[in-house]
C-alpha cells in the first residue's frame, strides 16, 4: 500500500528471470521490484533460490533469460550483461568473505580505492565507516584476528563503503546471538535511511524478515509465491505453505455458512460459532478450508475440546487441543490454565480462508502491496 503510493525509479527491477544450474531450474520466470529506499526481505526455506537470486542481481551468476534493472539502468538483458563491478550494488556475504591478507581498514578502503580515490583518502573514509560500526579499534587487525561479530561489522562496513543504490544481504546474521543481531539491525536501518539506498535481504528466519523489511517476498521453488508488507503476508497468507512459513498455523476443513458482512458461521461438531473472516471476505455456503493462528483463538468458550499438550512461553501459553474439527493450537494469556487430558472449552475469534478443494469456488485471496 505504501510502496504503491510513491513511484520513483525502482532500485531493482527483475523481469522474467530464469536461472538454472545444469538442467536444474533454480529461478523460474521470476518478477520482482524493490522501490528506492525500500527494504525487502526474501523469505524462503533453504534451496528455494534466495542466494541464486542475490547472486544473479549482483552479477556472479548469469541468468538463462530475463532482464534486470538496477536504479533504472539495465544491467542484464538476456545473454548480455554488465560485470559486477559495473553494477550499482554492494553485497554482505553469508560468511562475510573477508580477504585474509587485508586489515579491516584496507578491506573497507578497497571499494573506495576501486572508485578511484587515493590511498590516504580511502583509508580516512574507511576509518569513519569503521567508527560508525563501532570497530575502529580493530582497524589494523586481519580477519583471522576478529571474532565472528567483528568480521560481520567489517563486512557490512565494506558494503557501505561502496555507496551503492542497492544492498544485498545474503543471510548475514545467521549464527549470531540475539543482542548482537538487534544492534546490527538498528545500525543497518540507520545506514540505509542515511543513504536512501534499497535493501534486498535474504533470510529463512521470519522474525528477522519482519523486523528488517518494509515488504516481504516469499520465495518458493524459484518463484515469488506472495509479496506484501509483513502484516499482509502474516494476516492473509495465500495458502497453507505461506501461512506456515510466516508463523504457527492450523488448517481446518469445516462446514460454513454466511453470517453477515465480514463473518461466517462455523460448525465444530454439533456446536456453531460466528467468527470474523480475516480480510472481510466470505466463503459460499458449504465446506471451507480455514486457517487458524493460535492468537486468533483462545481458551474458554463454547467449542468442545481436550488438552493434548501445553507449551508455556512466558507472556502466554500455547495449548494443543483435540477437537471434533481435528487438532488445533490456541493461545491463552499468562501461565497454563488447563492440564493435559483435561476437557475444556475454546473459541475462535477469527479465521482466514485458504484455497483448497472445499472452497474451490471461492476466489483466491491473493494480497498485493
Amino acid at each position, binding site marked *: 500500500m505504501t510502496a504503491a503510493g510513491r513511484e520513483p525509479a525502482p532500485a531493482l527491477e527483475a523481469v522474467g528471470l530464469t536461472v538454472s544450474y545444469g538442467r536444474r531450474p533454480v529461478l523460474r520466470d521470476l518478477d520482482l521490484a524493490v522501490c528506492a529506499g525500500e527494504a525487502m526481505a526474501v523469505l524462503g526455506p533453504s534451496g528455494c533460490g534466495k542466494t541464486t537470486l542475490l547472486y544473479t542481481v549482483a552479477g556472479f551468476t548469469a541468468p538463462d533469460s530475463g532482464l534486470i534493472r538496477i536504479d533504472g539502468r539495465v*544491467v542484464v538483458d538476456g545473454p548480455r550483461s554488465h560485470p559486477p563491478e559495473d553494477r550499482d550494488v554492494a553485497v554482505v556475504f553469508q560468511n562475510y568473505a573477508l580477504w585474509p591478507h587485508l586489515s579491516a581498514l584496507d578491506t573497507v578502503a578497497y571499494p573506495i580505492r576501486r572508485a578511484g580515490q587515493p590511498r590516504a583518502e580511502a583509508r580516512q573514509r574507511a576509518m569513519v565507516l569503521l567508527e560508525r560500526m563501532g570497530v575502529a579499534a580493530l582497524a589494523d587487525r586481519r580477519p583471522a584476528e576478529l571474532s565472528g561479530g567483528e568480521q560481520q561489522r567489517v563486512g557490512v562496513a565494506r558494503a557501505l563503503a*561502496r555507496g551503492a543504490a542497492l544492498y544485498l544481504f545474503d543471510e548475514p546474521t545467521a549464527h549470531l546471538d540475539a543482542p548482537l543481531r538487534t544492534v546490527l539491525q538498528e545500525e543497518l536501518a540507520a545506514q540505509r535511511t542515511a543513504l536512501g539506498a534499497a535493501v534486498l535481504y535474504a533470510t529463512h528466519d521470519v522474525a528477522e524478515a519482519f523486523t528488517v523489511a518494509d515488504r516481504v517476498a516469499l520465495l518458493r521453488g524459484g518463484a515469488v509465491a506472495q509479496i506484501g508488507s509483513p502484516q499482509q503476508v502474516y494476516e492473509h497468507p495465500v495458502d497453507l505453505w505461506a501461512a506456515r512459513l510466516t508463523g504457527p498455523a492450523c488448517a481446518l476443513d469445516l462446514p460454513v455458512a454466511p453470517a453477515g458482512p465480514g463473518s461466517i458461521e462455523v460448525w465444530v461438531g454439533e456446536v456453531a460459532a460466528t467468527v470474523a473472516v480475516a480480510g472481510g471476505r466470505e466463503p459460499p455456503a458449504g465446506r471451507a478450508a480455514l486457517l487458524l493462528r493460535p492468537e486468533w483463538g483462545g481458551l474458554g468458550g463454547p467449542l468442545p475440546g481436550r488438552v493434548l499438550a501445553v507449551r508455556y512461553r512466558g507472556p502466554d501459553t500455547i495449548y494443543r487441543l483435540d477437537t471434533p474439527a481435528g487438532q488445533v493450537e490456541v493461545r491463552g494469556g499468562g501461565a497454563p490454565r488447563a492440564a493435559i487430558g483435561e476437557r475444556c472449552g475454546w473459541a475462535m475469534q477469527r479465521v482466514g480462508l485458504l484455497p483448497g478443494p472445499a472452497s474451490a469456488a471461492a476466489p483466491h485471496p491473493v494480497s498485493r502491496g
Partner: protein
Amino acid sequence: MTDPVAAPSLRRPTSWTPAGLVLVSALLVLLVGIPLVRLFAVALEDGPAAVGRTLRTGATGQAVVNTVWTSLAVTVLGLLGGAAAAFVTERSRAPGRGWLRGALLAALLGAPLVSAIGWTRAYGPGGLLDRLVGLHWDGLYGPAGIVVVGAAGAVPVGYLVIAASLASRVEPDLERAARACGATAGLAARSVTLPLARPGIAAAAALVFVTGLNAFEVPAVLGIPAGFPTMTTRIYQDLTLAVDPAAFAAAAALAVGLVVIAVIAIAPVDALAGAGRAPRTGGAAGAATAAGRRSWGLAAALWTFLAITVALPMLALVLVALTRAVGLAPVPANWTLANFAAALDGHTYEALSNSVLLAAGAATGVLLIGALSAALGRAGVGRVLGTAVTMTFAVAGSTLAVAVLLAYGGSLRDTLAIILVAYLAKFWALGHRPLAGAAERLPADLVRAGRVSGAGAATAVRTIVGPLLRPALGAAWLLVFLFAVHELTISSLLYGPGTKTLAVVILDRQQLGDVAVTSALSVLLTLLIAAAAGLLLVARRAAGRRSVPT
C-alpha cells in the same frame, strides 16, 4: 534498448576457459604426448610380440623380473613402516610427535642418490661401522641392499599419504563414536578406521610401488657394481655404454615396459580411491583413547629407524668428506677441507651451475604451466586434463628421457634444453597439485567480494587472488627446484658434453671409486637441498598464516 545510456555497453561475458583448455592440451601433447607416441612407435616397430619377447627373455627379461620383485618388496616394507609411523603421529600420545612428523617429511626431501651413497659409507665394506666395531653388511651391494635402502626411502612416502588420509578422512571423533557405541579399540580400528583409511592405503601402495619401479639412483649405486640389473639401470647402460642399435631397441622396450607395469599397478587403485570425501566432523584431534606405553616403544623404534636410515649414513658421508685420507680414523686430528677443494674443480662448477640453472628453469616453467592447469578448475575437461598432468608423474624418468630423446633429439641433443623439456614433463604434476589445491581452497566469495567492490577481473586477480596464492606459488617453485636440483635419472640419460648435472658427476665419481670426493660432493648437494628446504618451510609457514578463517 529501453535504456539508451546503458544498453550499448552491455556485452556477453567473455570466458577464458576455452583458451586455457586449448593451451594446456597443446602443452600436454608437446611435452608428453608426442614423445610417448614416438617412443611407442619406435619400440613397436617389429610388433608387440617382439617387445613382449624382449621383456621376457635374456638380460632384459632378468631386469624386468628383478625390478618387479624388488619393487613389490619395497612396497610391502615401506607401507608397513609408513602405517606404523602414521599411527604414532596421528593416533598415539607419544611425546615429540611434531618433531617426528618433521623428521619424516625432511627425509622425504633428501636425494636418493646421496642416501644410497651414505649407506655404503656407513654400512658397506670399509664403512663407518666397519671402522668402529668391525661390522659391515655384505648384502648391501645387491638385491637385499636395493630392497632395504629403497624401503627406507619409501617409509616417509607411505607415511605422508596414510597420515594425510587419516587426518582428512578418519577424524578421531569417528573412532570415539565407535567406542561410545560399545566397540573395543581393536574393533573400532577394524570396523571404522581401516575401511575409511583404505583408499589412502591403496594410494600409498600405488605411489610407493611406482616410485620403486621408476627408481634409478639406488639400483645404480648398489645394483650395478654387484651385477644386479634393474629396468632403469639397464636402460642407462644400454643408452650410455652400448653403441649398437639392438641395445637402443632394448632400452626402448624397457621404457615402454615401465609404463605398462605402472598402469597395471595404478588402475585398480583408482577404483578403490574413488570413494567420496567424508564430511568433516570438526571434533578435537588426538587419540581416541590413551594408547598407553606401547606408543612410547613405537616412537623410540621410529627414531631408531630414522637414525639408522638417515642420520648415520649422513654422518658417515660428512666424516669421510672431512677426513684427510681414506682409511684414516675420522677424528678431528685427521680433519681437512681438502676433499671439498678437490671436489670443486672446474667440471664440478659447471655441473653445479647446470643443476641450479636447470632446477630454476624447471621450477619457473612448471610454475607457469602448473598455474595454468590449476586455473582450469575441477569441472569437465579441466578435470580430465588435471588428471592427465598428475598421471604424468607416474611415467618413469627413464621412459620420459628416452621418449624426449626420440622426439626432440634431432635438434636438441646434448643441450640443457632437452633436459629441461623432460623436467617440465616430469615435474608438472609437482607444481599442479599444490596450486590446484590452493586454488580450490580459495573461497569463490572472496573474488566475488572484490568484483562487487568495483574491481575488474584483472584487478581482482592482482589484488586478491595473487596475494592470497603467493605463498603457495613460492612453495610450489621451491618444491620443484628441490626435486630438480638432485635429479639424476633423466639427466644421466640426456646429458652431453658440457651439460652434466651435479648428480651425474656424483654418480660418475662414485663409479670410479673416488670415495672422498664423492662424499664431499654429496654433502654439498645436501647443503643445497637443505637451503631450499629451509626456504620451503618458511613459505609453508607463510601459506599457513594466509589460510582463510572459518
